[in-house]
């Protein structure tokens, strides 16, 4: 049951999508809120007295504007997207609520990886070589061309290229292609896709809370291995680029005309310190980075999002909310996504060295439902996360890396 005491002077927000952590954060905060989620959530919301409006985000038709009017009639000030699939809904709703049609165009830009890169290029942001592919021939052509550009001779190992779905979150549908043979393994239904040249650099992610066109908190998340592990704050090796990274994000929010909210871009930094833009999302990151931030800094990242989106948030309020980056962190929080290494597994068994490690916090792994492990075709789709927390970023990094060599399902 909600025990919330909200402040009527502040904004009324709508959460788009179902996330218990986000709902709990909102319930404990001082803004009035409503959850917009599919109708399967209704029973739970009624039972626990959670303010709720049913909406089916998959159905797009000429009645879609209704949700904006429903929320407008309730007096909602702003909609906050919780998932990739609700980003354009938030843009559309907010353009109605705030009387600002450009917000919808901005959301569409943030939803399409190819458009997003074009826009970034126009803003003078460095991106890798990229192209859309509509079939397998496009992929082979791009792979050849990229490698010709790199002055590779026949027989030299190719530089890989990356394929990503246009509009999916994070690692979903992300593939690495090295040879033309591998192209045949891409299922027809994944096209069209975005192709990118491989950047030999250090990939990292940023979470930035933006209010009144200014960055209010900027976190750098260090990937140990993409798709497996991440921790916050980053090691000093990466944090030394903070000033440069901040300048890049400022360029980004200017280019995309972002006045408020939350951005989650990914970058590469090459050995000479050049930053390459990968992509940007306008929603909370995957891999439970919000939970890691709360563990490391003690502030609730969802509440930070609510502040950043709420037009009624004051300067003092938001300045007081966020801690000082890196120095205020109590330690380093990381997580590792477990994927079974064996083809046939019968039970979950956390390795003793992991379980008894001082940094080990907890895990969300569940016993296997099936004995046969499906082959891993793309990044992502781990079976659950393991959480760590400790004082030394390098111990954390090596510990996360080491988990890749362990069996959690035997």
């Amino acid at each position, binding site marked *: *049951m*909600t*025990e919330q005491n909200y402040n009527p002077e502040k904004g009324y927000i709508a959460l788009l999508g179902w996330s*218990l*952590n986000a*709902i*709990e954060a909102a*319930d*404990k905060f001082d803004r009035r809120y409503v959850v917009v989620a599919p109708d399967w959530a209704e029973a*739970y919301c009624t*039972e*626990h007295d*959670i303010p709720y409006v049913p909406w089916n985000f998959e159905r797009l038709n000429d009645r879609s504007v209704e949700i904006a009017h429903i929320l407008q009639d309730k007096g909602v000030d702003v909609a906050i997207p919780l998932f990739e699939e609700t980003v354009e809904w938030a843009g559309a709703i907010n353009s109605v609520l705030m009387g600002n049609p450009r917000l919808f165009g901005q959301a569409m830009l943030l939803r399409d990886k190819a458009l997003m890169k074009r826009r970034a290029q126009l803003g003078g942001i460095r991106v890798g070589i990229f192209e859309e592919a509509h079939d397998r021939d496009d992929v082979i052509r791009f792979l050849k061309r990229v490698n010709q550009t790199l002055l590779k001779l026949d027989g030299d190992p190719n530089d890989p290229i990356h394929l990503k779905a246009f509009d999916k979150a994070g690692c979903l549908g992300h593939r690495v292609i090295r040879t033309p043979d591998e192209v045949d393994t891409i299922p027809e239904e994944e096209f069209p896709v975005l192709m990118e040249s491989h950047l030999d650099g250090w990939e990292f992610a940023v979470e930035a809370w933006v209010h009144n066109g200014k960055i209010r908190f900027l976190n750098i998340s260090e990937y140990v291995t993409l798709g497996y592990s991440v921790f916050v704050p980053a090691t000093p090796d990466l944090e030394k680029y903070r000033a440069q990274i901040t300048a890049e994000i400022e360029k980004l929010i200017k280019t995309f005309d972002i006045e408020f909210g939350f951005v989650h871009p990914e970058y590469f930094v090459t050995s000479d310190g050049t930053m390459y833009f990968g992509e940007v999302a306008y929603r909370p990151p995957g891999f439970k980075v919000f939970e890691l931030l709360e563990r490391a800094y003690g502030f609730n990242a969802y509440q930070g999002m609510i502040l950043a989106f709420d037009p009624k948030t004051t300067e003092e309020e938001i300045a007081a909310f966020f801690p000082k980056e890196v120095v205020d962190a109590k330690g380093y929080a990381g997580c590792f996504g477990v994927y079974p290494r064996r083809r046939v597994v019968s039970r979950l068994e956390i390795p*003793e060295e992991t*379980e*008894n490690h*001082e940094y080990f*916090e*907890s*895990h*969300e792994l569940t016993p296997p439902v099936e004995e046969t492990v499906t082959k891993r075709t793309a990044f992502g789709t781990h079976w659950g996360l393991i959480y760590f927390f400790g004082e030394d970023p390098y111990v954390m990094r090596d510990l996360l890396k080491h988990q890749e060599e362990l069996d959690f399902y035997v």
Partner: protein
Amino acid sequence: MSENQPASQAPVVNFDKLVQKLDESIVAMEESRPFAKAGKLPKLFDIARRVLLQPEGCQAIEARAQRLEEAGVFEGTDWADPATLVPSLTTYSLQSQNADTVVIEAFSELRLLLVARGSYLHPSVSAEQAHHYLTQVLAINLGLLFGMTGEAEREQGKLALISQSLVQYVASHIGYEHVIDSLIEEIWRILEQRPIRVSDVRRMITQIAICRADPDADLGSAGRGADRLISSLYGPTRACSEDPGTAVYQQRLETMDSAALQNEATGFARSMHDTGLVSPYHACFVRFILEGQDSLLSEALGLSSTGRDCLLCYRDLVRTLIDGSIFPETAQGLYGLALLLERGILYQPPVAPALWRQARLNLCPEARERIQFAYGYQPQPAAWLMQGVMNMLGQPLGVGQGNNPTCQSARALSMWAYNDPDYLLQMVAWAARDNEIVMHFEGQPVSSARSAGGVASEVTLDLDPVSLVVVPHLDRIYAEMGRLCVGREGDPHRWVNPEFHGWSAGRGFAINVDVATGNLTDLEGFIRHFYASYHPYYNGSQPLIHPQPAGIAVTDSAARFIGWHAITILRVTLDPEGEMRVYFFNPNNDSGQNWGDGVQVSTSGCGERFGESSLPFEMFTSRLYIFHYDPLERGEPAEVSEDELRRVTEGVYRSWGEDRVPADALQAEPPRID
């Protein structure tokens, strides 16, 4: 007395940090909105599980039990209303393979302990109620309390450590005195089966003795029945009744006249045969009289005329056996020796020479090491092994498999000790001296040294000395024979059992489970055939000649299938009440099991000899899934009455056969044998 526990403790972890994490997750739970609490539970339960695995774990949880309950860990579960909890159900949750179930049960017991101790005023349970409930929980889980483990704990793995330490923690605070009476009953029940390995029983008796000696423990009228048990270990005769220590007792012996020595001898013998336990003083006494007064030996062993005869014929051998292997630590060997003499097996020509070989056997380093690991350095490993040999030959039905999935090997040892003692001695010599046993499978030699792993990944140390040395070899051979059958259609025991156990195991093989599907097959034919082979009314009153291996589908007290288990059918005959019973040997450490649906295995009171289990013929048949027979003696399927047949088949369908009806589309797990 040496108390031997398999060593399996978790490596060192930083307990303070762990408890800090526990506190943080409790705070997260407390601060959580009710609608989000469920999401906080997995983390809390996992950390609590790790805390409970530590030595101080129960204490840490108990200290937080009230907060845990108020934070809502029990909400939405049966544990939320402790007044309605049923003590007998704790056995299932404590033996569960689901970590969360074990943890929530631990939370609940520790909360009630806090209530019972008056530190937590619970809204729905009084301190007296909580105390009463916990007492019942302890009495029901005595096995856990004293580290006696069975099939269920084996399946449970490391979680069993939590259940054990929980029960022990609760007992240490509730007081053992409240469970002592049921404990004493339990000890007598176990002793009536005359197990070879009595260290668990010794531990329990010692625990009772400690409680009784503790002036703070108010035993009331409880524990009176323990006198005979305690005295059998710590003071069976007049001269040692106050447990003076062996050194003092030795001095007293030196000053005794012959009448006093005579009294001591009969006192020891009476106590030993009464309980099956041997006091260390008994060993001192026997060693003492061996010097010049060995006419008292027959009295001290409590021998009948048969035993005395045997002793007189093989006097030198017996003296050598005692001299080399009977010490206060290995006193239990005296009971084995007495029964060995009573069985008269020394009159079988190869047995005495084989025992002479055993007495002079050089042990290989591997065998030495295993014995030292399990029993310590005093006396020599060879003495321990000799003690084990005497016990196994004297008590062939006292063999137990320990906490190992090696019922096949334990059964084979028992069968040989019972039926073919010199063959057993040969196996012991090969394993202990050469560290290799070679058996033959359909003409092909199978060596334990050259076979890959056995059924058990590691054979634990909670075994008698003979099993400790021989079982690892047998287990590997058994598994290797199984591997040689890979690719053959049907159950591998058809070929493995006769080759493994020896010529006397019937070559004919009947099974009522289809290996490929796990479904029942031709149940009626199987039952008729079993009646025709084993039931005296249907087989021409032919008593069973050689003990025969058989397979049982073990079920728990709710008649749910647990697993396949190897037993030996020893004899089929009328019990004192005139009911036809199957008497069998179960290598499981405690055979008095409740298999559910009214099938309660009896171990005494129905005409059983020491170590035998028994069931009425029909009930036994309802749990049987494999038996052997002599194909040349196979008669016609018995004309079993429809009524009797129906009762047996219904017994199968109500228990382990429930999901195995062939029409069922669901495929059951393929059979697997321990």
